[in-house]
């Protein structure tokens, strides 16, 4: 979608080119249906694995800050 005004930017219909990695991570990491929350790992009789993503999310946030997030692929096109 093209810009509709000077200071308004639309993005996101083409994941490859216009949606930033940050936006994707925001959506796929800390959102979405959790069928079975924060189950640590497969133990006898419980064979769903769902790791504690909140913990991982925190470490990703920290890592991204350290990597100067503005250097990641551009969020949008002007």
């Amino acid at each position, binding site marked *: 979608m093209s810009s509709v005004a000077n200071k308004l930017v639309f993005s996101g219909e083409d994941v490859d080119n216009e949606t930033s990695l*940050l936006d994707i991570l925001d*959506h*796929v990491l800390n959102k979405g249906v959790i*069928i079975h929350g*924060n189950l640590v790992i497969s133990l006898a009789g419980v064979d769903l694995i769902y790791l504690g993503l909140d913990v991982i999310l925190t470490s990703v946030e920290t890592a991204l800050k350290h990597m100067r997030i503005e250097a990641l692929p551009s969020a949008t096109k002007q």
Partner: protein
Amino acid sequence: MANRVAPKAKPSALYLYGITQKKVSLAPDLVGVDGRASLEAMECEDLVCWISRVDKSEFADNLARNMENLDWLAEASVRHQRAVSAIAEQAEILPARLGTIFLSPSSLEADVRKKKRILEADFSSIKDSDEWGVKVFAVANKPALPAEALKSGKDYLKAKAAKLQKPATKGPDPEIERFAEALGRIAVRTADGGKISGAQRGLKWQTSLLLKRADRRKLEALLTKFSKEWEDVRRIECSGPWPPYSFVTRASAESGVNG
């Protein structure tokens, strides 16, 4: 002559992308989160679970470690989103979070059976709607320091320090509150924006909207109106349409750790 022994197949796990109410046809070249396996539709409880078969070692046993490897995480995230979007183009989907993995079809079926009522309520709430992300950034104005007024290096440094000083903490920006209220009036629901992009430079506010597809023009008109009013002060960025990641129930987040 020695007998050839067939290489033992690596143990696999089921990676879940999301759940739909009907089966759809996907492009044959669409691959899953590992970049290799195709997506499969698994029917359970009158719903369709979209999965691909992944290497158990990479996606189950070592998932936590891999998710802290940003290169691995970036590839997996983009592939996950690409797969979910491909399904969402054809059917309403309850998108799964990255890294939702089952070791067997029976465990997936059992969980869907257990959560079926919640999943059905979620399908009703997202009907005919998409998610949109809206962010407001401060526009950086950088007027040059008035060189003629600066008689010494000390004057320059004082002026520079004053410019860099953060403004005193104020309450919520009433203009952004007005914008948020206007968005809330056209959206079915709103949700907080994501935590990861929250650290973007200049970001003042962000939200996620669940919007009826029929109301997309209203969103465009509203964003255009505010962006014209805010010219040179704030910049609006809008991303979407997204599958409704922010508007599905965290079905069993409260169920705690089992095992």
